[in-house]
């Protein structure tokens, strides 16, 4: 029967067991290898009723499928954003650090000068981002890197998670210190985060964060820029840094979050 399909009549006869054993065997041999004919083998009304009856009877006895969550778009975002526990740790860190520093500043401005907040707050998302991916901090890095959503995509999801918490902290810090405007604080925050991601496509993310944070400390602490001037009139600089970092990130997108570890 190779090359030819089984006719509808023969199929119907086979289904109703009207064929001889020899014919039935050759039909079965063909059905084994032919999807089209298998599809044509529609169950009769009687068979359909038996199947429905069995399904109904089994329904009560089968274990319930547990708490399977409906796979909605919102669920997808929740799973992808909130998955890595390091992300949660990074959230906690930024809230705690900013909270403590703000408190310290409010209690005694002389003990804790405003530039300490300037040094720490914009670097919070850097630390958070570095903590949320990479072979050192993500226990599932190896498996995640081999998935289509791995690499840059999942790194951006996690960065988004970090920024949603770190940016309000940055804004709070800006308001408390009174140096410049909150927007002017968010720009270096964004630039440093983008810089960490871009550098993280070249070297281990934790090292990238260390380099970026170190560079930030130099800019804040060492003259000639030093202090409040970093955020006062430097918007073009930070936008440029962000732009360069995004270009690097795009060019090296295949390497982000997939470093050979």
């Amino acid at each position, binding site marked *: 029967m190779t090359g030819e399909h089984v006719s509808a009549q023969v199929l119907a006869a086979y289904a109703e067991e009207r064929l001889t054993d020899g014919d039935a065997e050759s039909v079965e041999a063909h059905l084994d290898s032919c999807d089209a004919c298998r599809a044509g083998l529609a169950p009769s009304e009687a068979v359909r009723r038996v199947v429905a009856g069995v399904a109904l009877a089994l329904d009560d006895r089968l274990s319930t499928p547990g708490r*399977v969550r409906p*796979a909605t778009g919102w669920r997808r975002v929740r799973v992808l954003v909130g998955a890595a526990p390091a992300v949660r740790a990074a959230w906690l860190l930024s809230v705690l650090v900013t909270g403590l520093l703000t408190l310290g500043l409010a209690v005694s401005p002389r003990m804790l000068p405003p530039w300490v907040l300037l040094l720490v707050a914009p670097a919070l998302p850097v630390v958070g981002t570095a903590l949320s991916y990479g072979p050192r901090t993500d226990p599932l890095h*190896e498996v995640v890197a081999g998935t289509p959503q791995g690499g840059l995509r999942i790194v951006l999801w996690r960065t988004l998670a970090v920024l949603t918490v770190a940016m309000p902290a940055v804004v709070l810090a800006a308001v408390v210190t009174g140096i410049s405007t909150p927007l002017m604080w968010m720009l270096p925050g964004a630039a440093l985060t983008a810089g960490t991601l871009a550098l993280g496509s070249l070297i281990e993310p934790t090292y990238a964060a260390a380099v970026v944070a170190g560079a930030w400390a130099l800019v804040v602490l060492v003259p000639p820029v030093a202090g409040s001037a970093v955020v006062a009139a430097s918007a073009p600089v930070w936008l440029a840094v962000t732009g360069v970092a995004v270009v690097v990130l795009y060019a090296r997108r295949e390497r982000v979050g997939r470093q050979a570890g």
Partner: protein
Amino acid sequence: MTTISVADLRVSYGKRVVLDDLAIELGVGVHGLLGPNGAGKTTLMRVLATVLRPDRGEVRLLGHRTDDRVGVRQARRRLGYLPQAFGFYPRFTVREFVEYFAWLREMPAARIPLAVDRAIERVGLLDRADDRMKHLSGGMLRRAGIAQAIVNDPRVLLLDEPTAGLDPEQRVEFRTLLRELGLDAVVLVSTHLVEDVAAACARVSLVDDGRLVFAGRPEELIAAGGDGDSGDSPIERGYTAVLRGARQVSR
């Protein structure tokens, strides 16, 4: 049909060459990847999992070149991978863990809830599906790892030392699962337990010192061994005989 095809593969960590001039072709079925520790099995698995970029060579999965950005994304959707060592997020339940990878592998949303439970059921963990990962034993963790690897019904399934930590009964069940999965997917199982291969694999590849030194059926590996070779079973004697032969040639 060939679904994994590797040619002229070379991988090195720094100056140390781990895989050299390796070529391998794999079709549907269960394949065993054998070799001594440090032979390059895990490195080959990582290259096939598209996690490690080779220095040189062409790797095709399901017809897609892995150095092609669009192709590799397509291939990754149909890929399942269980690394030898993998961590977990302690607060995740088994179900959340498997669901996470269903989303990461870009499965159609409508299929995810059922696929997640089916994968957990196939590894026999359905009664622990809502337990947190940190409360699982080593063998259960390994099975949860297998569940995440099969959740997307992969066409290419890579399992690196999947039987480590499983008790004898679970290993027998696992071999049955392997044979089922091998009906319509390329399943590559790396192991240093030669008996696992004899029991579950239709074909065997043997890697030594970064080179492929044997590819064939388990019976052929058994036939390579003689009474004088060391080993407790026929296939172990075949294994040591092939290794010895390969090392003499390379000298």
